[in-house]
């Protein structure tokens, strides 16, 4: 699935230009970073010259006269370089962290504005990795990796300048090896990149295995599938072992080749330089400089190639993050609307109208963004303020569609949804959502206390109000059973509570927010009948004076609804109140009969 997203979207230049807008604020810092880095590499490349001077002048001439000057100069340069290194590292690390922060904020904020279809199509793990790990990798790329390339390039240039200035012939000997080495490293490294990718894949598969074993442990036990699971896990770890040995071979081979080449360069320089020394053309000190350069010359080349392969690897992450940041929401407010009502993060509440609660579907057709069939066709319905609408039908018949449209989680493909007589698109999403109470079939609670969860829709709510809301939905019983009342932890995703209990709390949460529009999507499917009946009474109280939409399996829960819509195969086949539909003896009647009496 992941690969499908990226196919055919290869960005030019490894995707680096796409990062330019995000790097722009730091342009001056980057320039400074490059300047300081180049300076530091320059200093590094001239250190061997001190040895050369000492060997050629002090030792060869047996005099210590100039030594103090050399020492002072050396300390001076060393001190300067220490300062330089300190600053380079600080700017570099800050650069990494600034980019991290900026990209993470951008990604997170952007996610807050994306429509549900994005979240339906991308699973949580995938999106999470974009926000948390891609950003980190890109941060590292534009700071340390970039600096690495700059530093090593300038170091090589400096070394060669010094070598050619010192002795052209010897410098030439060292030069011949460079293309050979670069070629070998390039080829071996290419394979290593492939192996490393395989390792990462296997690693995430193993993490996935652990995740599966832990979250699915109950299923594994009741299915007595322990051995089968261990067998398949054992296969994965064995694959991992093989892959890691193979990768280690490749990387050791690469390193060994480079080290051996360095040895060869050393030997050649010694041989040819030694001859020149015996002939008296070359001084011992100069030869020693060449020997140090010869030993160190391949390291920067290896580093550069290393950084380039990292860049190739990170390319995928850049693409993925950019895809996320460039994803346009299917449901977006127009600039004019944002101008008047404010955007998701900066609402202009002073311009907001009250929401009265009339809802109307006007000739609405709808198709899900990832589907190709119309699930609604030319549907019209008027729901006056205060009415309750119930939607019934078989599993998978598309009952949530209407609700999604009312909440503007999706927008009609054709036609309009009117709120208080005006197209929903004429007001901001936030305006609508701020007047909405929504209880889901799979209720979600956040890690934290009961109180924090209930206050989510109304942060200023007092404990009294919270208890009131809880009592209304019989949630007070649940909270009283917990150790610390409102301060009890609900656990990861509400995991310490049963599904039914979570439904009750999320119902209370919705009611506490005192919404004008109430949407109950199978809000009580996991609650027992007696409690549900009690909630039913509460719903009557709560929906009084509010426009409400309810989806339910159990028909007993919706008979009081003002409008009942029966949905079959994604189409609304009947509408009317309970009495009317029963008299009609159509689909709804069938449903009721089946549920009531099928077993007699």
């Amino acid at each position: 699935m992941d690969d499908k997203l990226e196919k055919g979207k290869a960005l030019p230049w490894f995707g680096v230009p796409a990062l330019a807008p995000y790097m722009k604020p730091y342009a001056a810092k980057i320039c400074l970073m490059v300047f300081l880095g180049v300076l530091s590499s320059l200093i590094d490349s001239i250190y061997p010259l001190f040895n050369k001077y000492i060997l050629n002048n002090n030792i060869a001439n047996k005099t210590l006269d100039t030594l103090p000057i050399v020492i002072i100069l050396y300390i001076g340069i060393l001190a300067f370089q220490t300062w330089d290194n300190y600053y380079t590292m600080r700017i570099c690390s800050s650069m990494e962290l600034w980019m991290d922060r900026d990209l993470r904020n951008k990604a997170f904020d952007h996610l807050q504005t994306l429509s549900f279809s994005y979240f339906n199509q991308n699973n949580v793990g995938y999106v999470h990795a974009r926000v948390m790990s891609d950003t980190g990798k890109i941060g590292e790329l534009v700071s340390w990796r970039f600096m690495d390339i700059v530093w090593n390039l300038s170091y090589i240039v400096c070394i060669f300048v010094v070598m050619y200035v010192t002795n052209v012939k010897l410098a030439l000997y060292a030069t011949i090896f460079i293309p050979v080495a670069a070629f070998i490293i390039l080829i071996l490294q290419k394979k290593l990149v492939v192996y490393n990718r395989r390792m990462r894949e296997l690693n995430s598969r193993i993490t996935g295995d652990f995740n599966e074993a832990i979250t699915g442990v109950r299923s594994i036990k009741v299915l007595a599938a322990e051995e089968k699971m261990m067998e398949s896990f054992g296969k994965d770890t064995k694959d991992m072992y093989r892959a890691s040995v193979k990768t280690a071979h490749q990387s050791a081979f690469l390193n060994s080749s480079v080290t051996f080449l360095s040895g060869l360069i050393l030997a050649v320089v010694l041989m040819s330089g030694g001859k020149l020394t015996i002939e008296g053309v070359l001084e011992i000190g100069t030869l020693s400089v060449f020997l140090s350069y010869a030993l160190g010359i391949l390291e920067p080349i290896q580093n550069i190639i290393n950084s380039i392969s990292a860049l190739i690897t990170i390319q995928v992450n850049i693409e993925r993050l950019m895809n996320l940041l460039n994803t346009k929401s299917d449901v977006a407010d127009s600039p004019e609307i944002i101008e008047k009502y404010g955007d998701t993060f900066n609402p202009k509440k002073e311009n907001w109208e009250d929401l009265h609660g009339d809802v109307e579907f006007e000739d609405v057709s709808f198709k899900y963004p990832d589907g190709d069939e119309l699930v609604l066709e030319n549907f019209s319905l008027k729901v006056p303020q205060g009415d309750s609408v119930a939607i019934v039908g078989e599993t998978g018949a598309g009952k949530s569609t209407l609700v999604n449209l009312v909440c503007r989680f999706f927008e009609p493909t054709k036609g309009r949804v009117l709120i208080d007589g005006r197209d929903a698109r004429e007001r901001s999403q936030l305006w609508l959502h701020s007047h909405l109470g929504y209880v889901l079939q799979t209720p979600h609670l956040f890690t934290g206390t009961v109180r924090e969860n209930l206050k989510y829709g109304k942060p200023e709510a007092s404990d009294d109000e919270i208890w009131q809301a809880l009592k209304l939905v019989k949630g007070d019983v649940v909270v009283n059973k917990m150790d610390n009342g409102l301060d009890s932890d609900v656990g990861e995703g509400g995991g310490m509570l049963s599904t039914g209990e979570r439904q009750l709390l999320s119902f209370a949460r919705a009611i506490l927010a005192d919404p004008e529009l109430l949407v109950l999507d199978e809000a009580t499917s996991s609650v027992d009948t007696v409690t549900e009946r009690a909630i039913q009474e509460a719903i009557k109280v709560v929906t009084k004076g509010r426009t409400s939409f309810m989806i339910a399996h159990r028909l007993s829960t919706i008979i009081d609804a003002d409008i009942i819509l029966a949905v079959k195969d994604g189409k609304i086949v009947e509408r009317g109140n309970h009495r009317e539909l029963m008299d009609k003896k159509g689909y709804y009647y069938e449903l009721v009969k089946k549920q009531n009496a099928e077993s007699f």
Partner: protein
Amino acid sequence: MNNVGKNRKTLLLYFLRGSKRYFIISVIFAMLVSVLDLINPKIISFAVDCVLSKKKQKVPEFAVNLLSEINEKFIVSEGDAYYFNSEYFGSRLYLIAGLIATVAFFAVLCRYFFKQFNARGEGKLVQRMRNLLYEHIIHLPVSWHNANQTGDIIQRSTSDVETIRNFVAEQLTNLIRVVVLIILSVIFMAGINVPLTFVAIILVPVIILYSLFFHNKIAASFQKVDTMEGRLSAMVQENLTGVRVVRAFGREAYEKKRFEQSNEKYMNTWIHLMKLLSAFWATSDFVSGLQVLLIASFGAVFCVKGTLSPGDYIAFISYNAMLTWPVRMLGRVISDMSKAGISIDRIRYIMNSKVEEDAENALKGDDAPMNQDIVFDNVSFEFDRVEKNAEGEAVVVSVKKHDEQAEVLKNVSFTIPAGKTVGILGGTGSGKSTLVHLLDRLFDLTEDEGKITIGGKDIRGINRKWLRENIGIVLQEPYLFSGTLAENIAITQKEQKMDRVKAAAKIASLDEAVEKFGKGYETYVGERGVTLSGGQKQRTAIAQTVIRNTPIMIFDDSLSAVDAETDVKIRKALEEKAKGTTTIIIAHRISTLMNADKIIVLENGRVAEEGTHDELLQKKGIYNKVFNLQHAV
């Protein structure tokens, strides 16, 4: 296996079984690398002094015979003493170059073997650790899993394993390597010039101590950013899983503010840490630079005085360059090692947790036939209370105290006759699921909590595997494994027979839904596959259980997410298929239960009513009330 987690050392040694020898061999190669690396500067020094500067250099006595054997021209004798023939070598520099290349070649070869053996040891170690952990985790009881957070256990199984791998394969071998390197280079250097050796190593302890001190100091900060990152990551996770709630309540701005604040704090902590690190690296660079200066200055003085040759001067500079980096890393390695200790403890927590274990003589096979009456005999049950210790690990703090409040089940007694169907009705939290979890021994009753028997045999004496293989439970919240639909349905089967998979899917009314997926039964599901609806998941789980053909079948509210019509269809199909199967059905819907041979109504952990549908309606109790509520249409 019981004592492996006694202390850090025993556990580490237990993990190291099978990989230890690779590490030992790799360390031997690492030592060879050090020796060979140290030889080359010596050759260069010889080349510079004896060959290029034509300084007389004595041949060590042991080598005289050997060298003259190879080629008598290597040596010239002057009186008693033997000297290297500098003229000869001078005109044949390729000999020296060849020697350097040969030494380099062997060094490289050893380096390669060092890495290979290290990688093998590392691979074996990680494989063993992961396999053992995995095995242990899936055999830990459900109560343990309930008490521990998923993310935390995964972190222990991944990052902590990684830390230990790092410790053994990199830090430990590195430590040995560096110590050997230091000792050997001191020996080599001392062989050339003792006073300069003192100069060369005088700053080594300073650098190691400085590095050690620094890394110890910032270890806490590292831990702090780790925790902060974990929190930030959890925040994203929550926001994504709760996206519908965030939107429906219009709380995007709040989420944004909260995230950006944490993000900023996280960044600032890192920036502070990086400032310290930059200072450390820059200053230790400075100290290393001073070390070079010391050698160069004293070397120059000794050379001018005549106690040191230029070649040896160059050799010293090379030795120093070889030592600088490893010595600086040493402090870090030592300080990082403390992290490994914590990681071993964190893994020890898992390995020391008690797994489900059956006694040798636990009943199975014909000794414990499963197509028999199931009897709950005065069963009371209470969950263990757990609290978190400072490390966030779950600790059982109080043994069961048998009070009204804490007990989930209270004196529950009833019989499920073999081959019959029993329905269970009860309110939210009335203990229905616990009842069947106890039957499958996901939890065990203690001695004084009554007993559950099958065919008169206490299930605590029955082998768990045998028991679970014969009881098919469809859980209330079923789990899909990543794999194809067919693989999921056939997960308990030795072989995946498509006709059986299809038959099971048909009974579970899943067949039509499967047809609609593009790839049918080969559709990939689970975390990385298509998302199934609640009803589809439940039906997959039903198919998964149906295919097992167990003598006992349990449906724990397994039909709540499907509509009434599908519910009927599934039950009809099951009735035909599963004749003679003992069946337990838990449901809220009366229509799902009413045909059962017996219905048990649970209220607050007690059996409130028991009887057939008609009997219960007569009683005018809870069952009757629920029936009326549901059929008030």
